[in-house]
């Protein structure tokens, strides 16, 4: 989904830094200094604990052996000996899980590359080329930002059935690319359009072709936006469940679909579910921590589907 930010008066990068960054003395600090900062500290500590405990619960549960799962995961504080990596080593011999992990990678990587490639080409055209109906077509693209994927499920399933790619990885990838495009074009076009015109004109004077300009000028300068886009698309596809549930056959199902299939016997499957879920979320978390700034910038720039 996308809604757009009000145009801020502070440069976006600065905002991104502040959004996740250090405190700034402002309104709140003044209110706080009168009402007692101690209360706020305690309150926020409690909230932080509240926000962390569910995830810690999953992590600890993933380390607790089946025989110990009779008592709450928090008892590990009293008897840390019950923790072991057995569940994880068992996972490695679970072919379904390993296979679904690979499928997730096989779906996510081409979907991300595809959106970046197709999206940046189109964004360049929308930003720097003249053609009939350009502004109208771009408005349509903006309109498509909020289209729910549900609308695509039934028609595309039928279409894929006729083309013989229903249930295959290419089918899933194409759907992801197509539904990722409105956001990609929107984000990149606006960024590309901000590239100083002089740079492009200078390149053109030097006789550079459109392709050279795109590759040598626009892509390198657009890298921050492309990074934001790639991270968003990567996370979106990696985390996707519904699209894969509909379009991925049993043999190509990604991790999310595999995990969901295990939730039917939640209690018994916890040995697989907890470490599996942890495996599925650790990759996005690594991406998130490594590229935090781009992630936040992308969020500020407009959105999440």
């Amino acid at each position: 989904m996308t809604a757009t930010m009000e145009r801020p008066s502070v440069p976006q990068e600065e905002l991104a830094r502040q959004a996740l960054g250090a405190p700034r003395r402002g309104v709140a600090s003044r209110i706080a200094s009168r009402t007692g900062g101690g209360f706020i500290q305690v309150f926020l500590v409690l909230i932080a604990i509240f926000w962390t405990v569910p995830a810690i619960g999953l992590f600890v549960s993933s380390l607790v052996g089946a025989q110990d799962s009779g008592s709450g995961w928090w008892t590990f504080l009293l008897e840390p000996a019950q923790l072991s990596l057995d569940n994880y080593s068992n996972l490695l011999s679970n072919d379904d899980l390993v296979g679904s992990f690979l499928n997730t990678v096989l779906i996510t990587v081409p979907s991300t590359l595809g959106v970046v490639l197709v999206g940046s080409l189109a964004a360049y055209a929308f930003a720097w080329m003249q053609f009939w109906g350009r502004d109208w077509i771009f408005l349509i693209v903006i309109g498509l930002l909020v289209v729910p994927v549900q609308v695509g499920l039934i028609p595309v399933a039928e279409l894929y059935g006729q083309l013989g790619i229903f249930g295959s990885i290419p089918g899933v990838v194409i759907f992801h690319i197509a539904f990722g495009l409105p956001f990609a074009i929107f984000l990149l076009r606006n960024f590309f359009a901000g590239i100083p015109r002089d740079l492009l004109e200078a390149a053109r004077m030097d006789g550079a072709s459109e392709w050279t300009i795109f590759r040598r000028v626009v892509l390198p300068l657009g890298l921050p936006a492309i990074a934001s886009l790639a991270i968003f698309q990567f996370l979106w596809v990696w985390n996707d469940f519904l699209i894969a549930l509909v379009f991925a056959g049993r043999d190509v199902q990604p991790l999310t679909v595999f995990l969901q299939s295990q939730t039917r016997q939640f209690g018994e499957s916890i040995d697989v579910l907890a470490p599996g879920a942890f495996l599925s979320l650790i990759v996005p978390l690594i991406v998130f921590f490594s590229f935090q700034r781009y992630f936040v910038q992308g969020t500020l720039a407009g959105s999440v589907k």
Partner: protein
Amino acid sequence: MTEDEPGLHDEGQIATAGGAAAVNTPDSQPGLGRSWWSLAYLLPALFLLAVVVLYPILYTVVRSLFDANGSNFVGLENYGDMFTDPATLISIRNNAIWVVVAPVVVTTLGLIFAVLTERIRWASVFKLLVFMPMAISFVAAGIIFRLVYQADPDQGVANALIVSVHDIFAESSAYPGAGPREEAELSSVDGGFESTATYGVGDSVALGLVGFAPGDVSPDAVPASEPAAGDALQGVVWLDFAVGGGGEEGAIDNDELGLPGVVVQAVQDGTVAASTETGPDGAFVFEGLADGDYTLALPRDNFREPFNGLDWLGPALITPAISGSYVWIWAGFAMVLIAAGLAAIPRDALEAARVDGATETQVFRRVTMPLLAPVLVVVLVTLVINVLKVFDLVYIIAPGSVQDDASVLALQMYRVSFGGADDQGLGSSLSVLLFLLVLPAMAFNIRRFRREQS
């Protein structure tokens, strides 16, 4: 990698809905870009959008006018079914609850966090922790919260928490589930027990209970003995069960334990005349009781079942429970956007108000909030649209047996079209409904973009 790229960094403009971009809109530069070339750049994107996004929108509308397998035209019948089918109506109701509650709660929390973190030194740590769930999948989050909401307080941390808080304020009863043997002289009344016979001063009464494990009796308990005769109304409450078998029912055998701490009441004409508690050997005495006929009552507080927390994943609480996990995921999003909005508020405006003598509360309400309003609207709109499409969380967290109660439109659409029923006509009409619901947001985005361009 890109930190030091020339040109862009200074302007720091990552796309803001075309705001910054409008400065040098390509319209004013004829000659840049050759028309026929543009087709090659656009074609892949336009082809995919047309085939996988635009065409399905039209096809879904058409498909919704046909029956389950698409062979017969049925007009608006699917829409009629949709609004009379109880399952869909429940989904619509649940979606309505989601839309009304979740975005407001998330935005409010985001605002509170954004404002309060301006105060603390470890703001970045806090923001990171709260924002982190945004990066993980709804499936993983769903599994996390299935764990949190496990019914058994020894498994689910939510119930463990509320049970321990509850037990601080309300002591659990000593003998949950205990009761008399069938033939005993006690009858069940209002969750507790009352003697069928009446007794007077000078009587000694033995009240045997079973249905309780000897191991669970307080370690202070000692074996009961026949109640000694006395000049008050007295007796003993004991566990009429001998460990290792044997023993006579209704009689106090060797080693059968007295039950300490049982509240015993002497009741006359429906009112409690006296109340006492048993000692370590289960003995009780009513001192100074007036002459008369009393029944002996063991009130229900002795036998109350322990509080085991809430049935989060049951039909009644499932939607609030899932919303809780949604809040966990999205509060960080609201917080980050609002924090950016706060950072963008010109310091001068705040200072000016303070100089004019406004209190901090007034500054917040009269200056900060109005300046923040556009950001709050964007956050709310984003969340409303997101909530309309909520699917994964409900599908994962709601156990199969309560999915009917927890269902939302997107889930219903999936279940009807692919999850067994395979009625893609009805499924299409549900998609159309979802699409219609997001149309206002589409108009909102387009209108805003055009305004910023002009």
